[in-house]
């Protein structure tokens, strides 16, 4: 008997019990949805992290006193808390030691004493600006560009001039109808002269990057107390080829600057795009594993549901099976019919789950401003798994149907 015919019959009988088919399928849909949704969101985020990791520019690594983000606890944490700040002197010494390898060392320190507002005349921004001190390499290290005016010069930094460069959001708020250049802006109680503006950068992971104001790091430290800040150092290797060499040199330089003896551990953290990606990947792996376990359990439950409904269906249709056998249906025709029904239930449920999962995952991705992706691999795996579940859950009921005695089943009422 043709496969097409079996398929037609299977669709027909699933259509008879629409609610029941729908409920059975929804179990599979939920299982597939959870894994596809998570995988889509994770791939979308990872794609955007890998292509446009905007925290750091290319070939850049960063040195700081504390590790980023991921919390350690106990002994390790106490050791980190006891570390000395990286001072301006240390940072400048480091810069000097690396001078023959790279010029691009960006010093950064950020204001942390509460929300910062910028004001000019009677206009002011919302509180919550990113306010920091840096040097002329801030643009390269953080992938900003100048829109109006100019960047800092080495002289501005050396002389700790009270200049400021404004992000686009700040410009829009304070200078909606005039050029900001040369104007005075008040930040955290100090006054700075605007020498430039950053070009619009948009947002990354749901956070705008245009609510930012940067002043010379030297000025920043003298205005807000040098002892209270630890400086972050972003260093750009001249090329990918000498990246590792530069990194080695940087670690050596930093150890010298920090006066570490040979047996002492580094009392600073180094991270790069690679290490951020790796850290993300680590989290992503845990999330994925969790999603896999959850959906495996959901799918197991759903396959029990399919087997149950198929057993009910075989019993209900005993008479039909008898009729089919009496007009010449062979065992494999009946087996095929019920197996295909189970597979159809499962795969249809799977397809619905994949569609919902991809939509939801991508909605999340769009919300976090990551790129939309379609996880072909996971979708294919989902379909294969669903077919397998269909066969596994349908096999016993289908065998039961195929082995029914035609006389008994014709008599069944």
């Amino acid at each position: 008997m043709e496969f097409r015919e079996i398929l037609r019959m299977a669709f027909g009988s699933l259509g008879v019990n629409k609610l029941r088919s729908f409920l059975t399928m929804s179990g599979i849909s939920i299982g597939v949805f959870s894994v596809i949704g998570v995988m889509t969101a994770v791939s979308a985020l990872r794609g955007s992290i890998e292509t446009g990791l905007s925290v750091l520019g290319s070939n850049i690594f960063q040195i700081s006193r504390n590790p980023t983000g991921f919390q350690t606890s106990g002994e390790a944490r106490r050791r980190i808390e006891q570390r000395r700040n990286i001072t301006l002197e240390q940072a400048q010494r480091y810069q000097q030691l690396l001078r023959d390898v790279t010029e691009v060392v960006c010093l950064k320190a950020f204001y942390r004493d509460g929300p910062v507002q910028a004001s000019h005349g009677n206009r002011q921004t919302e509180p919550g600006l990113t306010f920091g001190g840096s040097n002329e390499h801030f643009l390269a290290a953080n992938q900003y560009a100048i829109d109006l005016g100019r960047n800092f010069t080495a002289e501005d930094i050396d002389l700790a001039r009270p200049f400021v460069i404004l992000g686009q959001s700040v410009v829009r708020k304070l200078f909606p109808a005039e050029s900001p250049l040369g104007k005075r802006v008040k930040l955290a109680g100090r006054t700075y002269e605007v020498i430039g503006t950053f070009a619009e950068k948009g947002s990354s992971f749901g956070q705008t990057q245009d609510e930012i104001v940067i002043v010379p790091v030297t000025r920043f430290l003298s205005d807000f107390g040098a002892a209270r800040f630890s400086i972050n150092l972003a260093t750009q290797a001249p090329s990918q080829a000498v990246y590792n060499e530069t990194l080695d040199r940087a670690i050596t330089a930093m150890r010298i600057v920090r006066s570490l003896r040979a047996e002492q551990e580094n009392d600073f953290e180094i991270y790069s795009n690679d290490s951020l990606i790796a850290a993300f990947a680590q989290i992503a792996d845990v999330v994925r594993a969790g999603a896999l376990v959850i959906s495996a359990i959901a799918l197991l439950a759903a396959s029990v549901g399919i087997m149950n409904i198929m057993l009910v269906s075989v019993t209900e249709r005993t008479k039909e099976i008898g009729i089919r056998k009496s007009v010449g249906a062979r065992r494999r025709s009946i087996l095929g019919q019920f197996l295909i029904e189970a597979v159809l239930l499962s795969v249809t449920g799977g397809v619905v789950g994949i569609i919902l999962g991809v939509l939801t995952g991508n909605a999340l991705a769009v919300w976090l401003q990551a790129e939309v992706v379609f996880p072909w691999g996971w979708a294919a795996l989902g379909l294969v798994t669903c077919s397998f579940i269909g066969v596994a859950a349908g096999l016993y009921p289908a065998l039961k149907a195929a082995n029914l005695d035609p006389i008994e089943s014709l008599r069944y009422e």
Partner: protein
Amino acid sequence: MVIRIEGVTKLYRMGAETIHALRGVNLEIRRNEYLAIMGPSGSGKSTLMNMLGCLDTPSAGRYDFNGKDVARMVDDELAEIRNREIGFVFQTFNLLPRSDALHNVELPLIYAGLSPAVRRERALVALRNVGLGDRIHHKPNEMSGGQRQRVAIARALVNHPSILLADEPTGNLDSRTGEEIMALFEDLYEQGHTIIVVTHEEDIARHARRVVRLRDGLIESDGPVP
């Protein structure tokens, strides 16, 4: 000779008891015979019918169908014989309730592996032959008992079987409709079909040309209708 049965017995085990449904039956049926099988309940009538219809195999003895030994066949071989050689008509019609007349009649052709176009063509002819050419898209519950039985007869004949095997074909019909169905059987017999009717009603058996009476698993009498 379409059917030759020699020394056929059938045993059933019901718990500890063994029931001898058939105790050694000999029967020959030729092409274009019109035969009634009669007997009270428990006579082995149904068992013989199931055997003739290749739904069941004998415990011992020989059953040749068109020269092929059916007694030793496995399930799928029996299914093929049922598909090609036997047309069933049941007391309760046994149509697929959710399929229309056309699809019900096409069913044996589906399992015969014919293409959709050929199936449709032949099913339409079969339905027209039983006078239901204008009812092809009606479902069983949209038809009268007589119409349903006609659909069943069209289904039984659609694959040009060697025998038409009817089990109490008028049992669920009023007497007038029953007579219509028996008239249809008469037409079919005159067209050259081989018809076996299993019944307990003398009125029905009287339509046949030959009556076989069973009692306690044995053939009690076998002869022409008086």
